[in-house]
């Protein structure tokens, strides 16, 4: 039984590798070029407004994937056309544009937007019109109540329970595991959601929460918060931060001559934190980094190179593929697998296929048969080491020679 179970994935992986090699290695002339009326896939991204800086990452990733898919067989032999609209970072605009895509433009399929509020707005429209919607950036899975909505990022159905334990497992592996923790979080829904889970799971595992603080999203002055963190002087600092908040907090702590013993940052700006001296040994959540073993997954090296080239050309400050770009790549991989698997552009058929099958993505093999259509939780931990992000936990995802560094 054990042999048969282990043999099956091996065969599948081998078959997949052979297939991928054949597809990618064969001369273009031998591949079936998609033809006929394009399959139109509609979606919005926040190309203007306050989410624009992140949405452009998704746009680049989507363009790479559309070219990649059209370089193969398109969807069912037809070329894929991405009908991308700008939702201006406003959920009400996102809602109206998905209605436009479905009822006016009459696209064949849709892709999800970026960020929780636009996703929820789009999800309502998808539900009313029975469309499959795949999204990669909704950090609160329980809000995904529509049965034809699928996550492209492996948060798992209850990340507020699972991910804190990944972090606490990593901390427990240190020579001197933390006994006390300070939890700070932005009052941003998905960050706050994770912080509350962290507080609960820390308590269950006997790590004493000596300070729990929430600050307003967009806060820039961390002086008073830093003073309280220093006063608490816990073994571990967990920060539910967004963007540059982590840099600002660590800078405020430095001004107080205080360096946290160990610190974790939920959704920081990866480039600035890695490059800042304050970010030394900082920990962060991730699903993928451009290193082994991730680069060995089929297509990832090529996608990472393409992303770097285009992101550099677009003058993005951090032109390295990470979980944001990977999320959009995963969305398209899932849609492609759904269409091919169902051999149909019918949403119900695609949804049915996805619920019953796994899909190989940039994040590894994902499944959608759990609560809220989620599969396994695959959140990882990366750490700034030598000015670069390195995946350190779980250890099986760490590159050779890379280890978690504690205080």
């Amino acid at each position: 039984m054990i042999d048969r179970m282990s043999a099956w994935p091996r065969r599948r992986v081998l078959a997949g590798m052979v297939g991928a090699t054949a597809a990618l290695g064969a001369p273009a002339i031998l591949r079936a070029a998609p033809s006929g009326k394009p399959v139109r896939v509609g979606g919005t991204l926040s190309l203007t407004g306050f989410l624009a800086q992140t949405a452009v990452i998704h746009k680049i990733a989507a363009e790479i994937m559309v070219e990649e898919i059209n370089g193969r067989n398109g969807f069912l032999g037809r070329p894929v056309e991405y009908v991308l609209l700008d939702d201006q970072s406003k959920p009400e605009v996102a809602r109206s544009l998905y209605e436009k895509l479905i009822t006016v433009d009459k696209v064949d399929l849709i892709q999800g937007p970026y960020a929780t509020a636009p996703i929820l707005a789009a999800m309502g429209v998808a539900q009313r019109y029975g469309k499959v919607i795949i999204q990669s950036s909704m950090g609160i899975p329980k809000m995904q109540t529509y049965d034809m909505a699928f996550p492209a990022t492996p948060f798992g159905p209850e990340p507020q329970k699972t991910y804190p334990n990944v972090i606490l497992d990593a901390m427990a592996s240190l020579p001197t595991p933390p006994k006390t923790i300070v939890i700070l979080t932005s009052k941003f829904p998905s960050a706050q959601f994770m912080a509350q889970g962290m507080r609960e799971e820390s308590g269950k595992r006997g790590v004493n929460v000596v300070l729990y603080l929430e600050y307003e999203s967009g806060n820039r002055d961390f002086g008073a918060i830093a003073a309280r963190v220093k006063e608490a002087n816990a073994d571990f600092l967990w920060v539910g931060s967004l963007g540059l908040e982590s840099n600002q907090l660590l800078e405020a702590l430095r001004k107080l001559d205080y360096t946290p013993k160990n610190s974790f940052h939920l959704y920081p700006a990866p480039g600035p934190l890695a490059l800042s001296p304050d970010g030394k040994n900082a920990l962060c959540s991730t699903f993928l980094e451009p290193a082994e073993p991730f680069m060995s997954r089929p297509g990832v090296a090529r996608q990472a190179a393409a992303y770097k080239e285009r992101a550099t050309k677009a003058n993005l400050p951090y032109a390295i593929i990470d979980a944001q770009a990977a999320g959009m790549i995963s969305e398209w991989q899932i849609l492609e697998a759904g269409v091919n698997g169902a051999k149909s552009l019918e949403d119900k058929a695609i949804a049915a296929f996805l619920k019953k099958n796994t899909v190989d993505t940039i994040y590894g093999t994902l499944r959608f048969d759990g609560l809220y259509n989620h599969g396994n939780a695959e959140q990882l931990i990366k750490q700034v080491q030598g000015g670069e992000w390195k995946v350190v936990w779980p250890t099986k995802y760490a590159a050779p020679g890379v280890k978690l560094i504690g205080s």
Partner: protein
Amino acid sequence: MTNANGLPKLAAVLGIAVFAILPTAGLPAFYESFFYLVFFWVSLSTSWALLSGFAGYFSLGHAAFFGVGMYTTATLTTKFEVPFLATIPAAAALAALLGIGIGAVVFRVRRLRGELFALLTLAVTFVIATIILNTPIDGGAGVFMISVPMPAIMSSQTGTIYVLGFAMCVLTLAIAWWVAHSRLGMGLFAIHDDEDVAEAKGVPTFRYKIVAFALSAGIAGAVGGIHAMYVGFLTVGGTFELTVPLYVVLMSVLGGSRHWFGPAVGATVITALLYAFISGGEAMIGRALVGAILIIAILWLPDGVVPAVQKWLRRQRVAGAGASATAMPAELVPVELAPTKPVGQRNILEARTVTKRFGGLQALDGVDLDVREGEILGLVGPNGSGKTTLINVISGHFPLTSGTIAVDGVQIGHLPAHEIAGRGVARTYQIPRPFANMTVLDNVTLAATFGGPARPAAEMRDEAVHWIGFTGLAGKEAALPAELNLHERKFLELARALAARPKLLLLDEVLSGLNPAEIDNAIRLVRAIRAQGATIVFVEHLMRAVVELSDRVAVLNEGKLFALGAPRDVMRDPRVISIYLGKAYAA
């Protein structure tokens, strides 16, 4: 003429009918959503204009009232299971109460106007957002409304939202139209141009601003309540973001924030422009282009699209009517003198130990003064003697420090200026202060409406026309004050004061700045006014006019009543000559 007037009404009825039946036309849902968003912005920007456009209290805090409405509906529906529709009045009421509460404090402080009011309303937004963020109302997690049932007004959810947005929009525009064409609107427009003068002309400025604030905030709250259901997931950051008031301001200014329909035009244009550039490939260029269009439009049409169109149409009409319709300059001899009535023995004004201090400065120091019915009392004195201050305390512009003032036997010393105006006291200003954005006719009609006895609107307009003619401004009815010369603006001041049918008319240096011919004309005019039965107190430096016009002269010096008596006696008084010209002349 009747047909031309009926055309807009017919267009409005047809427009309402077409939009009302649109959801039954089987159009794709996107159009319902798009029009809903147009209605949303029309309602929001029009509600902003009710206070900020009409009354000139520029607010950057509209997101606060809109947000209170959104969270009222979200809280009542998700936590207390109140049916969605029942939450809309609650959303409106709560937002209106917030507006009234803020107004009740802020509108009492004279210095909180202009940019200070804008900043204060912005601060209120942050305070409200902080409260909602840090309480169970939101707490940071957001409010997800997916489980709230939508009433089945129409067969589809988008159809129902459309109908609600449309109804709100029609209601908002109806309110805006009514306000703009009512006594309230006239008062608000006057407040916009010069609040102190509006108060002195009888406009109950505090009450009107509170009403406008309540209407503005209440509509924004109701709009927010409906929009909560449209958005479905509320976050504090998304609800109270600065783009809401900025869009609202931009839309109102573009369309014309002083016109009831201006914000609707601006909102429609901007929403349509934003949807014209939604393609992913042109998003940034599109936004830049929209910005450029708006900048150009605002630079070229500073008053907004609707007033600009109205102005153009007016010019076209005038051109069509030919040169005969061109207004002629004001006649210099406007009136024929009626026989002067004798001065009565009854006192119209009784001032007793009137004192006014500004910090350490004693502007008036125990002034006792009676003015008799039908009398012209000249009020003279050197600069800084307290003449204008006395006019200001009698008219209520400054509150009394101590003492009493009675008009026709009624104590008015501690009444607000608009109530004093209502009791028959009218005044003019040394430097004319007409309502700059109102025509000559509207300026005078406002004074008749708020200062004089209650009459039908048409009668007040007729009265305004009469006084405009009386002061020699016939033919200038449609002109704006900026189109008048100084002489005409001074006479406009007089026309406004006369239109209130005052018992007591306070004229503050009405002759200053006029040439000799204009002075002679003005003197005749003042006599004519007195001949109508008015009692006049006039502050003047021109001694010839004082002697010619006054029955008695009161001299103020250093805030005290220095001399009082017949003009020639007072002017010969060595003490008076001394304070005017120095002791050498007095000797």
